[in-house]
């Protein structure tokens, strides 16, 4: 289990990094926290010719609140992100999601940007970003663009990033009064990939749901908003029956496949159950 040979580049500036990505394109792979990439290198499932280590790029690990969202530099470590005051105050969904990611020492190293760019359909942060309707800023020599989370995740391990682009920051919409959220997942062991996961974000006005976003992961090929569930909830007050209906709508909307540890039927059932629980909790939080 040793990586195949590669060339190692450690750019000191963003311009230099983007130049390397422009030069090497698909031959290059960005090394951020490395918690997913390095095992893939060691198993030789990933064999980049050039590894661009972005860890020393200056100014990319900040976490700050501004204009209705929290901006997280791509190199913000997951553990720091989950406990950062702006996140604790304004993005409680992320704070709920982070402890489910791996383990203490891997969260110390794993980055927010790396997790988003990796686009693992079983990962927590992409799901949270989609549920919140957040976005990512991608930079290349050609310029910068902001891509909505809904458009960022294409399929399992595939994002809208072009080979010459670097994800430089993520934007996490802040929750204000009347907003409530909940993150639910079930894994066989603490820190494992989930058998089912969901994130629910609700906005309540006059004791009715004004905005409802229910997203699921793990059972879909990318973190996916379930509009059927949102529509069911819109304009309503949540009770146990409605939460269950939202869960059923989500369960109907997904089409999982049998996996090593769980049948498709279980994953579908679990998704419904977790959505039901998340809707109830988000409602409580929003009240």
């Amino acid at each position, binding site marked *: 289990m*040793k990586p195949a040979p590669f060339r*190692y580049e450690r750019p000191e500036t963003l311009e230099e990094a983007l130049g390397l990505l422009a030069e090497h394109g698909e031959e290059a792979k960005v*090394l951020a926290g*490395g918690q997913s990439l390095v*095992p893939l290198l*060691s198993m030789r499932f990933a064999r980049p010719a050039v*590894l661009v280590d972005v860890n020393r790029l200056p100014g990319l690990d900040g976490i700050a609140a501004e204009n209705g969202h929290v901006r997280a530099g791509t190199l913000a470590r997951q553990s720091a992100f989950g406990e950062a005051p702006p996140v604790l105050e304004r993005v409680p969904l992320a704070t709920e999601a982070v402890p489910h990611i*791996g383990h203490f*020492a891997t969260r110390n190293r794993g980055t927010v940007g790396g997790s988003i760019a990796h686009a693992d359909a079983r990962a927590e942060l992409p799901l949270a970003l989609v549920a919140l309707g957040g976005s990512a800023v991608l930079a290349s020599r050609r310029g910068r663009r902001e891509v909505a989370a809904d458009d960022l995740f294409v399929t399992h391990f595939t994002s809208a990033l072009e080979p010459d682009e670097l994800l430089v920051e993520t934007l996490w919409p802040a929750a204000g009064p009347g907003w409530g959220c909940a993150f639910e997942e079930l894994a066989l062991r603490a820190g494992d990939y989930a058998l089912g996961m969901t994130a629910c974000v609700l906005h309540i006005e006059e004791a009715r749901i004004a905005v409802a976003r229910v997203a699921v992961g793990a059972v879909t090929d990318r973190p996916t908003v379930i509009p059927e569930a949102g529509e069911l909830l819109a304009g309503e007050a949540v009770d146990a029956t409605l939460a269950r209906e939202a869960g059923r709508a989500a369960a109907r909307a997904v089409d999982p496949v049998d996996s090593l540890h769980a049948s498709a039927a279980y994953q579908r059932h679990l998704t419904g159950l977790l959505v039901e629980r998340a809707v109830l909790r988000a409602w409580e939080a929003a009240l």
Partner: protein
Amino acid sequence: MIPIEITVNGRRYRETVPARLLLSDFIRHTLGLTGTHVGCEHGVCGCCTIILDGTSIRSCLFLAVQADGSELRTVEGLAGGGELTALQRAFRERHALQCGFCTPGILMAAVDFLGRHPEPSREQVVGLLSGHLCRCTGYEPIVEAILDAAGER
């Protein structure tokens, strides 16, 4: 081959390494600090956990070249040549190790963890240990040892 300079347990090393050399292999085989163990090389077992610039990480998920300029602590650096630390003593008193293979990684994670959570709950300690496999002890004595060490600080 890339020249790097690393401080480990207070001692400075200058070495030249291949780009692909894993930090775990560098620590063990280049520097000869074999107290850091390798149990899975994919980040699950936790045996290779060390402290890099004050934070615990998996050394098998890290390249030696990445550590250029960094300061590392490994299990050999805990007590140095002196008495065992309170955490190490607690492991012995609680019989929190048997084969001892997972122990260095758990110690290093616990040092970082206790630095940030000086008065942890049992649940937090159990949560920390979710990232460390131990096949000998049945975990409970490790939980007790870490709680003992926290109580002594």
